[in-house]
């Protein structure tokens, strides 16, 4: 049963990832990504990481995906939204991706790491302790980063800073 559910979720993940990779429509790609992200959150639950799973949904679905959808909607005019995500150079990309995948599988097979049987554990409290004890410095740095981010994003999108450049006129043939 568990394996079955796992396989379903894994299949959904792979399906979402493949949609992201191969869809010609940017909005479908984004939806594929959304599917993959939610499914990965499900995988996290298999790995006893419910807090991370919830974080994943909160941040990716509630934040990043909304932002990406905003971005798509703001930058895609009219009808071409379904076909403005062209795929080019598929052959070399496939080649490189295949090489990378084979390499990864090779590494997984030859890693020689020892693994233990994992078990479900309540994690929230312990993650809090880790964050505020061992990883307090990166934690604070992330907060600084986010402040910088807020300010930076705000400054970047201020109207008066944006210089609207005239679209280059197509030159008529010289007579």
């Amino acid at each position: 049963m568990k394996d079955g559910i796992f396989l379903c979720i894994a299949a959904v993940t792979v399906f979402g990832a493949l949609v992201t990779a191969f869809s010609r429509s940017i909005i479908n790609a984004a939806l594929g990504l959304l599917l993959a992200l939610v499914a990965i959150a499900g995988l996290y639950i298999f790995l006893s990481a419910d807090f991370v799973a919830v974080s994943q949904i909160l941040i990716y679905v509630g934040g990043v995906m909304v932002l990406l959808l905003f971005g798509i909607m703001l930058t895609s005019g009219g009808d071409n939204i379904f076909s403005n995500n062209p795929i080019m150079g598929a052959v070399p990309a496939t080649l490189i991706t295949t090489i990378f995948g084979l390499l990864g599988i090779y590494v997984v097979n030859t890693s020689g790491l020892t693994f233990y049987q994992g078990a479900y554990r309540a994690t929230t409290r312990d993650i809090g302790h880790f964050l505020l004890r061992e990883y307090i410095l990166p934690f604070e740095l992330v907060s600084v980063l986010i402040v910088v981010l807020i300010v930076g994003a705000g400054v970047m999108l201020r109207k008066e800073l944006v210089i609207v450049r005239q679209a280059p006129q197509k030159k008529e043939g010289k007579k």
Partner: protein
Amino acid sequence: MNFLFFEGISQNPNSYLILAIIIFCAGIFTVLTRKNIIGILLGIELMLNAGALNFIAFSFFRHESADYSGHVFAIFVIVLAAAEAVVALAILLAVYQQRRSVSTDDISDLKG
């Protein structure tokens, strides 16, 4: 080939690692083939998630007792991914306001 290392697929670390590789490869393919910058961003998100999945998997399988460093790293990855998405989209919108395009072909002024 020790693909099925432990009993049960859901309890086998390699299944998670292989899944992560697949997601990562999908991400690489997306990144390499897209001309739309948002498409590239989507690929990057996929790759980051593959990495986070690896972190969680190793945290689950590599320790006899509880150790949540992997979780913490996964959270950092998620947060940084969000940050990166925000900055990237801000830049993207600024570029779009200037050039009315988000294709990498049109944003190639920086030539050697």
